[in-house]
C-alpha cells in the first residue's frame, strides 16, 4: 500500500509538479492498493505519468506493451530527457545481439517497452518472467478490441501471457472506449473485476466542425485557406503517406506557412528533425498519417484537420485529442467529399481477409515465412488451433464490425443536430454540459469569434542559414 503523500512527494521529485491532473491520482491509488486498473483518460491527460510514477515508487521493472515502435522510441527518449536512463525499447529493428544484451540485463532496467509480437516470443517471456515484475502496462489498450482480430492477433494472447508472467499487477490504459470496448478489453485480458478510472472523453475547448465538398479541388483550396487563416500550430491527418507528402509540398508552396510531412516512411533523422522543429515552434503545420503516433507532447496545437475520413469514431476522437491540450480554444475540422467513405472502407477492410483467402491460406502446407500479412494472420489462428469455421465466422463478424464503425463515422459527418451530443452518447457519457462554442450544427463556424484567427505577427522567423552562424551557435563559448 502506497500512501497519497508518497505519490505527491514522488510527483514533486520526479516531475516537479505540485498537483495531479484528473484521473492520475485515482489510478495510482488503485494500483497502490494492488488493484488491476483500466484507465480511460483522454489523450493528453497524462497516462504515461501514472506508470512512470508507479515504477519510480515500486522500484521494480515495469513492462509496457505498446503498438508502435515509433511510440516506444519516443517514450524511451522522453524518459531519458527526464533523467531516467534505465529504459529500453525491445523492437524488431534491433539485431539478435542487441536484444540479447537487453534481455540479459533486465534487472538493470526499470522500464521495458515491447510490442505484443515481441512479448509473445518465448525467449522474451522467459527473460521477463525471471525478474520481479512490478507492473504490466497495456498501453493503447483499445487495440485489443479494435485492432486485435485482423491486425495484431498477438494482442489476443496478452491474457495468456499475463498468466505466464505470474499474473502481475496490470494497468490497461486507453484514451477512448465505449462500454462495449471496455468490457472487451477486460474480457480479453481476463480481468473482469479490474477497477475502472474513467474521465469524460469530451474536450470542451475543441470546436467541432465538418465541411463538405463536391470536388477535390474545392477541398484542397479550402484546406489552403484554413491553414492560412487559422492560428498555428496545427496538425492535418491524411490516410496515405503519399498524400501527406504531396500536400505538405503544396501547402509550403501556396501558403506562407512552414509545413512538413510526418509519417512512418521517414528515416529516423528526418523524423527527429520534424518533431523537434515542431516542438521548437519552427514549423507551423504537420501533415501526418493516422497510423503514426506522435509521442512528443505539444500542448498548444490549435487545430486538427482531417483531410480523409477516419475508419471509426474512436480513431477520430483520439486524433483530434491532440488539439488544445493547454485548455485554450481549439478546433477539429473534418473535410468530407462524398465518396471518401470508399477510401476509408477500403483501408479499413484491407486487413480483413476474404473467405477464399482464408480458405486458401488455412490449407496451405507450410508457408511459415509467408510474405503476406494476411497469410501470417490466418496461420496465427491455425497455429493456435482455431478451426477454419471459427476463423471464417470471426473475420465475417470483423468485416461487419468495421463496416458498422464506418457507418457511425459517416453518421457523425451527416448529422444535422449537435455533434458533441452525438459523440457523448456514442461513448456512453451523457452527463456533462455543453461549452459556449460547441459545433457547426449549433452555430456557424466563425474563426475569429472562436479566437482562432492567425494574426500577422505570428509568422515564424527561421534562424539564419549561413554556415558560419550555424557553427557559432552550435557550441557554447
Amino acid at each position: 500500500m502506497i500512501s497519497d503523500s508518497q505519490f505527491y512527494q514522488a510527483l514533486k521529485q520526479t516531475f516537479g509538479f505540485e498537483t495531479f491532473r484528473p484521473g492520475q491520482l485515482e489510478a495510482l491509488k488503485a494500483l497502490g492498493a494492488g488493484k488491476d486498473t483500466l484507465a480511460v483518460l483522454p489523450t493528453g491527460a497524462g497516462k504515461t505519468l501514472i506508470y512512470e510514477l508507479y515504477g519510480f515508487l515500486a522500484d521494480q521493472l515495469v513492462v509496457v506493451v505498446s503498438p508502435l515502435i515509433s511510440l516506444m522510441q519516443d517514450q524511451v527518449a522522453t524518459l531519458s530527457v527526464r533523467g531516467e536512463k534505465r529504459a529500453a525499447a525491445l523492437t524488431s529493428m534491433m539485431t539478435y545481439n542487441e536484444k540479447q544484451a537487453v534481455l540479459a540485463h533486465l534487472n538493470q532496467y526499470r522500464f521495458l517497452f515491447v510490442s505484443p509480437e515481441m512479448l509473445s516470443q518465448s525467449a522474451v517471456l522467459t527473460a521477463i518472467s525471471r525478474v520481479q515484475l512490478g507492473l504490466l502496462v497495456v498501453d493503447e489498450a483499445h487495440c485489443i478490441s479494435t485492432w486485435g482480430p485482423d491486425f495484431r492477433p498477438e494482442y489476443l494472447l496478452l491474457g495468456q501471457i499475463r498468466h505466464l508472467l505470474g499474473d502481475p499487477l496490470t494497468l490497461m490504459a486507453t484514451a477512448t472506449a465505449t462500454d462495449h470496448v471496455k468490457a472487451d478489453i477486460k474480457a480479453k485480458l481476463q480481468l473482469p473485476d479490474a477497477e475502472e478510472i474513467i474521465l469524460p472523453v469530451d474536450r470542451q475547448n475543441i470546436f467541432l466542425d465538418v465541411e463538405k465538398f463536391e470536388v477535390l479541388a474545392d477541398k484542397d483550396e479550402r484546406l489552403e485557406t484554413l491553414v492560412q487563416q487559422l492560428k498555428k500550430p496545427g496538425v492535418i491527418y491524411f490516410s496515405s503517406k503519399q498524400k501527406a507528402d504531396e500536400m505538405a509540398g503544396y501547402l509550403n508552396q501556396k501558403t506562407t506557412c512552414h509545413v512538413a510531412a510526418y509519417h512512418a516512411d521517414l528515416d529516423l533523422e528526418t523524423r527527429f528533425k520534424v518533431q523537434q522543429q515542431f516542438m521548437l515552434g519552427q514549423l507551423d503545420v504537420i501533415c501526418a498519417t493516422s497510423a503514426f503516433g506522435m509521442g512528443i507532447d505539444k500542448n498548444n496545437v490549435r487545430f486538427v484537420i482531417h483531410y480523409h475520413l477516419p475508419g471509426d469514431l474512436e480513431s477520430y476522437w483520439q486524433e483530434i485529442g491532440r488539439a488544445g491540450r493547454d485548455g485554450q480554444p481549439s478546433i477539429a475540422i473534418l473535410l468530407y467529399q462524398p465518396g471518401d467513405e470508399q477510401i476509408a472502407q477500403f483501408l479499413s477492410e484491407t486487413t480483413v481477409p476474404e473467405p477464399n483467402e482464408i480458405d486458401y491460406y488455412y490449407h496451405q502446407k507450410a508457408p511459415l515465412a509467408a510474405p503476406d500479412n494476411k497469410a501470417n494472420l490466418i496461420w496465427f489462428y491455425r497455429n493456435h488451433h482455431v478451426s477454419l469455421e471459427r476463423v471464417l465466422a470471426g473475420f465475417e463478424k470483423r468485416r461487419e464490425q468495421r463496416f458498422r464503425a464506418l457507418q457511425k463515422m459517416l453518421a457523425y459527418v451527416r448529422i444535422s443536430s449537435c455533434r458533441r451530443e452525438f459523440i457523448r452518447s456514442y461513448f456512453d457519457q451523457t452527463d456533462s454540459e455543453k461549452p459556449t462554442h460547441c459545433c457547426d450544427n449549433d452555430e456557424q463556424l466563425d474563426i475569429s469569434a472562436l479566437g482562432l484567427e492567425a494574426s500577422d505577427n505570428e509568422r515564424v522567423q527561421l534562424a539564419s542559414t549561413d554556415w558560419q552562424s550555424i557553427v557559432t551557435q552550435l557550441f557554447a563559448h
Partner: protein
Amino acid sequence: MLDATQLLRFLSANTPRRLRVIENVLVGKRSVSTLYWGMRYAQLDWLGYDKRLSRTEVDQAAQSLVNDKLAVMADTKVKLTPEGLTTLNATSLYQPQALSVRLTVDISTFWQRFLLAIQVVSEASFENRQYYPLQVPWAVKQTIKRWFHQYREASLAEQFRTFLEAFLTSLPTTQANFLANLLVGHVQPGKTITQLAQTAEMSLAEATLIQTDLVCQLVQFIQQEQAPVFTTLLAGLVNSPVSQSALQTVQAYNQGQSLSTISQRRHLKDSTVREHLLEAAILEPLNAFDYERTLSPALQTKLADIFDQQSIDEWQFDQVAPLSLEFWQFRLYEILRSKQDDQ
C-alpha cells in the same frame, strides 16, 4: 529516386548505353557484366547508390527522355540526342567530387555517428543534460557513448568548431551552407533534406546526391587530417569494395595458387573463381591486382597488336581466337587497358 533529369548524367551522346547496366549499377548488383560495363560507363562510383530503385522508375525516366526527344532508345540501349546533350550541359547538374568513398566506407552509419556526436558535444557545451537525442540504431548510440566517454576531457566543442570551420571553408559557400544546415545541436534541430531541396528549388534526388557527396568529402577530409577524435568516428566502417568471398579468392591467387587449386580448396565453381578475380580487378586500383600472372608481358604485346587503334568497346572476343584465350582472360585484358587509359 531516379528521374529523367538524373538519368541524363548516365548517358552518352557518343555510344548507346544499356539501360539495364545503369539500373543494375545503381541497385548494386555485383555481376561481372554489370561491374565491367559500369566501369566502362565510368559509373562505378554509383554502385549500390539507390538500392530501392525499381525497373519501372528507370523505364519511365528513359521513356520520358525519349518523348522529349532528348534520347533515342533501341533494344533498351539509350543514347543522348544532340538536344539531350545540350540539355545535359545546360542543366548544370551537381558534379559529385568524392562519391567513390561510398565503395569503401559505410557512409550512412558514419553520418549517423557524426550527427549524434555533434549533438552530444553541442548539448554538453551548453551543459544541458535534458534533451532529446537523435534516434539512431542501438549500435550507433553505444559507439558514440564510448566515444564521448573517451574524449570528453579533450575540449571537444573547441575541436569541433575548428574542424567544422576548416572543412566548411574548403567547400564552395552554397555547399558549406547546405551541409551546416543539416547539423543538429542545442536548440538547433537542423533542416531536413526535403526542406533544403525546397529552399534551393531543386529535386529531392539532386539534394540527396549533394548530401551524399558532401558526406563523402567529409570522410575524405577526416582521413586526410588524421585527428583521433574524428578518425575514431570511422572505426569499423572502412571496408574493401570487393566482397569478402572474392577477397579470399584474390588472396589465394596473389599467393600463386592455381585457379583449380583455389576452386578445390574454397569449394567454388571454376567460373566463380574467375568472376571473383574479375570483380577484384575491376574494383581494386590498378596496382593491387597481379595482372601479369594471367597476362604475361609477351601476351599483352600480342593483344596490343591485335587491337591497335581500336577503341575498347569495339573489341570482339573472336579477334583473339588465334591466341586461344579463355573469355575471362580477354575480359581481364579489357579491364587492364581501361584502367591504364584512366591513368
